[in-house]
């Protein structure tokens, strides 16, 4: 992994390498280098499979992190590429022409995080939510409990028990 990182660093301005496991590492890079790096990895280094494309909402820093996880089947290793986007008006270049499956991920991200991928097929169509009118639900400023209480009728009488304490009281009522 370190060797791969060194070789790539010679071509692209890359961030630090985070090695999670011997066969899994993450690299942070700028958004303009993503496409050339994906092509380089796919054609030169055997990362032919897009495992997933997902996002993290770093609301404190005001940005979204996109993670493109690639897999090298022959080398049995995974490499994640992290791209940071500004949270306001988040938009990213689509990669559906590299991996057609990316279109589905991008459609989901558009719906759940509100990250736009212009020119991605069907990106504006509803994916899981139908008729959603609030802010995208996976954003961290979306209050899911408040939304549920306002929109759905709750049945009264619901109680929540802490499982650990409840079982201790039930099984050992005399105490520790």
């Amino acid at each position, binding site marked *: 992994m370190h060797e791969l990182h060194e070789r790539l660093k010679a071509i692209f301005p890359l961030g630090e390498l985070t090695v999670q496991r011997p066969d899994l590492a993450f690299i942070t890079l700028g958004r303009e280098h993503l496409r050339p790096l994906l092509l380089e990895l796919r054609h030169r280094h055997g990362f032919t499979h897009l495992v997933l494309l997902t996002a993290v909402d770093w609301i404190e820093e005001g940005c979204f992190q996109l993670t493109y996880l690639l897999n090298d089947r022959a080398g049995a290793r995974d490499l994640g590429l992290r791209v940071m986007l500004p949270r306001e008006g988040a938009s990213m270049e689509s990669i559906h022409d590299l991996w057609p499956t990316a279109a589905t991920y991008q459609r989901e991200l558009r719906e759940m995080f509100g990250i736009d991928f212009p020119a991605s097929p069907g990106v504006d169509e509803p994916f899981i939510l139908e008729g959603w009118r609030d802010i995208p639900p996976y954003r961290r400023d979306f209050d899911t409990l408040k939304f549920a209480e306002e929109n759905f*009728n709750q049945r009264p009488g*619901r109680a929540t028990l802490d499982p650990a304490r409840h079982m201790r009281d039930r099984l050992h009522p005399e105490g520790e």
Partner: protein
Amino acid sequence: MKEELEKRVVKGPDGVEFEVDPLRDYYCQSAPTVMPPAYIKIVEELFNWARAESIWILGFGTGCGAIEMRPLMTPRFDAYRYGIQWRPTPRQANLFVISGYLSVKTLKRAIRSYEQMQNPKYVVGLGSCTINGGMYWDSYNTIKRLDDYLPVDLYITGCMPRPEALLAGFQELKRLIRAGQAEGANRYAEQFEWYKANQKRVIHDWDMPDYNW
């Protein structure tokens, strides 16, 4: 609103142009009516007995609870010996098992399927998600009380209920049917406005007709 549901002008094969409003033209426009047990008592009792002994379940798993229905067909539990069978089409089914959590998107399909079933029809809510939301009590996308949207005859508690609990629930449902108390379809027809208002309150893009049969 989907494109194919919008009003449009169609040119027929004979060259005549005419307007089509799919929601009005392709669906029945009459609300469901209460269908009383109009037969003499003993006939109705015979029918109730037959209904109880021949329960056809709509094969539509709405949530994770559907996985608990599969073992019922296997040699270990074998629900067929109780007269329970699965039908692939709502037209022929009598029992709709809402198996687990019901997201708003699935609720829409569940309503359509339920309304296509024939009277008398029964709804069983399976698992705590259908009762009060269960572990999805604060979820933005699942309904919390099934009986606001469909007339539920019976709840089976648990997360998940085991197949044995399902079998016990079906026996209880049989008792209700035999006693003539499982009149969910008529309750639905009586309080149709109330059910529709509840349904429309959570389904924001209502792009189907109010009556789906």
